[in-house]
């Protein structure tokens, strides 16, 4: 699944001069479009960009820049379910204001409809095994 998000990346002074964005583009197969930037050596800097690519590469890329010390702020965020952690209990069903979770009457499996989700985040802490996650 290809995705695209607008992000603000905040660079602390010690990493402003490191090629973090270059590495991100090179190693994770992502494309970007810089919308605004302010980078001055040895000072805090920021970049507003739109980053796109395949979901797994995107997630790995975000993990890389976070571990490099960059703080990420999202201009849009989405909520995804980690199906491996979901136990299908259904605790999220009555918490979600947009009815994004449906219990299938026969199997009692709980389906998650990403398109209905308004990313309010209520399910994230309500889900006992913490299967619902914010993605930037």
């Amino acid at each position: 699944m290809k995705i695209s998000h607008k992000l603000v990346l905040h660079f602390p002074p010690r990493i402003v001069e490191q090629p973090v964005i270059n590495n991100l583009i090179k190693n994770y197969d992502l494309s970007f479009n810089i919308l605004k930037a302010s980078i001055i050596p040895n000072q805090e800097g920021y970049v507003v960009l739109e980053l796109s690519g395949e979901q797994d590469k995107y997630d790995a890329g975000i993990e890389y820049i976070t571990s490099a010390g960059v703080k990420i702020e999202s201009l849009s965020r989405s909520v995804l379910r980690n199906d491996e952690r979901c136990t299908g209990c259904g605790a999220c069903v009555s918490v979600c204001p947009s009815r994004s979770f449906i219990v299938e009457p026969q199997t009692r499996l709980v389906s998650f409809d990403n398109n209905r989700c308004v990313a309010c985040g209520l399910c994230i802490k309500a889900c006992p095994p913490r299967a619902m996650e914010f993605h930037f």
Partner: protein
Amino acid sequence: MAKTIEEINEKIKQGKAVIATAEEIIGIARDKGMSCAAREVDVVTTGTFGPMCSSGAYFNLGHAKPRIKLGGGKATLNDVQAYTGYAAADLLIGANALPDDDPRNRVRPGEFNYGGGHVIEELVAGRDVRLVASAYGTDCYPRKNLDTLININDLNEAVLFNPRNAYQNYNVAVNSSEKMLYTYMGILKPRFANANYCSAGQLSPLLNDPYLKTIGIGTRIFLGGGIGYVVWNGTQHNPEVTRSDNGVPKRGASTLAVIGDLKQMCPRWLRGVSMLGYGATLAVGIGVPIPILSDEILNYTLVSDSDILAPVVDYSSTFPQREPEVLAEVSYADLKSGSFKLNGKDVATASLSSYSRAAEIAVTLKEWLQQGKFLLTQPVKPLPSIGDSIVSKVLNERS
């Protein structure tokens, strides 16, 4: 018609036993009639998978060189408090234990993202866990500090031992107050906006054998993805509650204490979970086989969601104040429909226990029996039942 456990085991070994899940048996008895079904079907399998707070595990770590006596000292596993009141190399961790520096409910509702249940899940998943311990030092156990990674494969014993699991029926939680409540029964919205329940209903082990005629000490079960045993009645076991005509308790009633080798279990069936504003705990998968020894026992397993009533309890006042009041009784069929009427108002329902996983357990146990991998056991002693003078006591505070 009466069968014995030995006869059924003989059929299991020959691959000839007929097994049905507690869901399937309802249809089989409807199609074939009761006595025919009782003759043909040998075992009914049940299942449940939900948060069970009274769960924990104990370990023997093997002795360090030089030796250290953990007993009477302090120990943490991934920063979570473990209990050191046993011998030098034995440790116990409970599902609700928390790291010392967890903020708990300092800012409400606390998140409780990591606790004893999560440590157990990580161990079972084969991940390394950090053990940090301190001791007072003795002539025979001189060492005072320990900081090491441990792995379940390197432990001498790793045993899941849960003092109370598999509650026979349970409360349906609602909130009459004006403010949001964060409970062990999940998030309860104000003014009866939602109701949470926690039972597999017609698939639930003890609801399929309401008087515990086949389940007792020594019963072999599915536990956490491996094989376990019933070792005692669970704590708070109380058969003396109000029942429907079919014998099914209308309140939380019997419980099981269970044990099993953690090394053969798997994280799909032992999952660390976090209840917002309440704490960390462990979701446990349990399945109990019910041998169809007679028509009567078959009849009990035919129970369906519409025959099982659960008490609706107000968690804003009645529950915390330990008042006995029950607002209403509602069937699991109604609870599973997504909403039910309480005082004329529609209340949306949600479950904390996973019915789809409960069904998966019942099917897995059925396959084990069909493949001859799992034999039934004759209980060595029944669990206390009606008439055994069980009285559920409350704490009598005194000075």
